[in-house]
């Protein structure tokens, strides 16, 4: 099978304008554009999942893709997550580049044996022979009153496994650039979206770009506190930082973009400047990504800390079904503001 020419990933990134200027795309459109651009470049790439073809995707991410790429490359599946996860491994062994859509990462749990016991280990266990360049993507986290079984935030569990890469975008610009990098990556990438953000609009430049993995994006600069997050809660951090600025508290706000690899270097450098860190994470607190960040900050910048690190996670209970409870269960602006003030002894 021919190897396609790899795009230039080191190319300069177009500027990120969060203020509503330039070409505006929905998060879902940005995802679609990323997949479509790569599929036009490389005919080994296909999209497979429940409802992705004739129904145009349960969340309309793949709208129109069946029309453009046809049923050989946009493929509806039986309801069988372990089935299509395993099928992707085989297709990758053959030389194809699968994109697998989970309607929700909550449903990936039934595919855990393929996802965790095969995908990240295939290259390793075959002495370097069989790679597994598959992108698994879908909604992650509480989607708005979907109940506990459908509201999983899986990154902490999955990030524990070596051999994977995990990207979690917080806005349309990142969604496109990170997904394009994920698709051309030679390792398996777990790509986590949020149905609460799919209609969010943001600037997505028309020019092509790839966002490198393992490099955090400094969304806001400040010297009082380091705010770290990834995915949807980044947006709550931005809101909180705006409110804190009114009280004269300036935060360094780091959007991690990927949690594996984790750009701990940027976090440590920021902490050396601010002496305080608040990590915001929509996973449960125990053994979460936030826990990992705090651990590594202690390893790398312990002597620079002026206050113990603070985590803002979800509450340590299953995601509640009731509207008000779900909102209170998740990290939000109010919790973040309080945590930052606590770290500054200004509560």
């Amino acid at each position: 099978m021919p190897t396609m020419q790899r795009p230039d990933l080191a190319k300069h990134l177009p500027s990120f304008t969060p203020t509503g200027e330039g070409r505006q795309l929905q998060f879902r459109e940005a995802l679609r554009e990323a997949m479509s651009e790569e599929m036009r470049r490389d005919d080994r790439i296909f999209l497979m999942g429940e409802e992705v073809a004739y129904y145009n995707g349960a969340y309309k991410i793949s709208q129109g893709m069946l029309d453009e790429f046809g049923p050989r490359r946009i493929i509806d599946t039986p309801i069988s997550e372990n089935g299509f996860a395993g099928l992707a491994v085989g297709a990758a062994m053959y030389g194809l580049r699968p994109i697998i859509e989970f309607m929700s990462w909550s449903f990936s749990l039934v595919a855990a044996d393929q996802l965790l016991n095969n995908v990240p280990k295939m290259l390793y266990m075959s002495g370097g022979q069989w790679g597994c360049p598959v992108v698994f993507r879908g909604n992650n986290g509480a989607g708005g009153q979907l109940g506990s079984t459908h509201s999983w935030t899986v990154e902490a569990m999955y990030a524990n496994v070596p051999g994977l890469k995990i990207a979690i975008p917080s806005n349309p610009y990142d969604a496109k650039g990170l997904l394009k990098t994920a698709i051309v990556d030679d390792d398996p990438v777990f790509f986590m979206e949020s149905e609460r953000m799919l209609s969010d609009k943001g600037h997505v430049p028309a020019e092509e770009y790839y966002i490198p993995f393992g490099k955090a994006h400094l969304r806001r600069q400040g010297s009082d506190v380091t705010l770290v997050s990834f995915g949807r809660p980044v947006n709550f951090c931005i809101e909180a930082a705006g409110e804190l600025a009114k009280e004269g508290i300036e935060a360094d706000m780091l959007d991690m973009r990927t949690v594996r690899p984790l750009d701990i270097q940027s976090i440590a450098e920021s902490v050396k400047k601010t002496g305080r860190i608040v990590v915001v994470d929509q996973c449960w607190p125990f053994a979460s990504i936030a826990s990992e960040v705090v651990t590594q900050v202690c390893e790398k910048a312990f002597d620079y800390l002026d206050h113990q690190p603070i985590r803002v996670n979800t509450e340590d209970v299953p995601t509640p079904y009731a509207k008000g409870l779900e909102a209170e269960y998740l990290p939000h602006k109010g919790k973040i503001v309080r945590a930052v003030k606590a770290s500054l002894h200004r509560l």
Partner: protein
Amino acid sequence: MPIRTAYTAKIEYLQILDEEGKLDASLTAPGTPGILTDQQVLHLYQRMIECRQLDEIAFKLQRSGRMHTYPQNKGQEACALGSGFAMRAGVDWIVPCYRENAAMFMHGVPMASVLLYWSGDERGNHFPPGVQVTPIAVPIGTQMLHATGIAWAAKMRREDRVVITYFGDGATSEGDFHEAMNFATVFNVPCIFFCQNNQWAISVPRESQMASETIAQKGLAYGAQVQQVDGNDLFAVYKAVYDARERARAGGGVTLIECITYRLADHTTADDARRYRDQNEVEAWRSKDPMIRVRLYLESKGLWDAGKQKAEQERAEVMVKEVVDKVLNWPAPKREEMFDHLYAEMPALLRQQRDSWATHSLGMGREAGLQSGSAAGSHQHA
């Protein structure tokens, strides 16, 4: 008509060469496709002797502490040989579990690789370029989905390739079997599901594993072609897989083949089947040993005799000994090799970990500007 028959089915059992080494004339009439020639049988019998010899030696090596756990193939060689021979080397794909050595060898996997793997070395799962055999799969059933994916990919690329995947009776209880069968038939991919029903899933007998009369009938539920075969009959296994392969190439999709066979040895060297199996049962199956009937057949054709058996046995012993010597002298992997092949390109942090003799966190500390040495000592320097 309030009641009508919605579905009826039958399962056919195929035996061509019986326990006495006699070929069924009606099934082997001249011109019948998929019938082994005498030269082919001779060739396969020699491979059978080699495989049996490998089993004996691997077992002895394990018992003397020089080999890790090893699953013997003894008694099931006709399954691996007949099926492997029916697939086209370098064209078709072999997706094994772990009890079909001969099929892997036939498709280009060196015997040394398999032995190296079972001696506890993942480098044994790295096969030479061009060999279309996937790694030995020890979780139960996962490989069937990979096979389905490979077959789907071949179909998508419009390439003339067929995939065969191997599993045991116990694996049909896993969801992977059912999901793979469902996908394979819904997508109508060129895939053969080859079940070696050796009656025992470690210590669990077939009747405690499933309530269905046959495994073949499970394929009917998914719309696959099905065939039950005497798995100790080299001719029947070859014929069934040959037909399934040709059907798949013609767009006929999926076949589930259930081979009725018997695990004459323990599950693996970590097992002692005497604790749970009736020895009378084992003895009854010994007389159905696939080697016995092939030898009888060849002898009846004047192609084999005691002298040839002795010479071939000696040749196999030398050949296996050479492989064993090679594997036992294989240089052990170095510590730093533990970090290889996790990612296509080694991430910086992993490289750092590899290059540090300390623990992960101490390695990080040193990287942050601390001196090497004990954690307490280095902290004072910071």
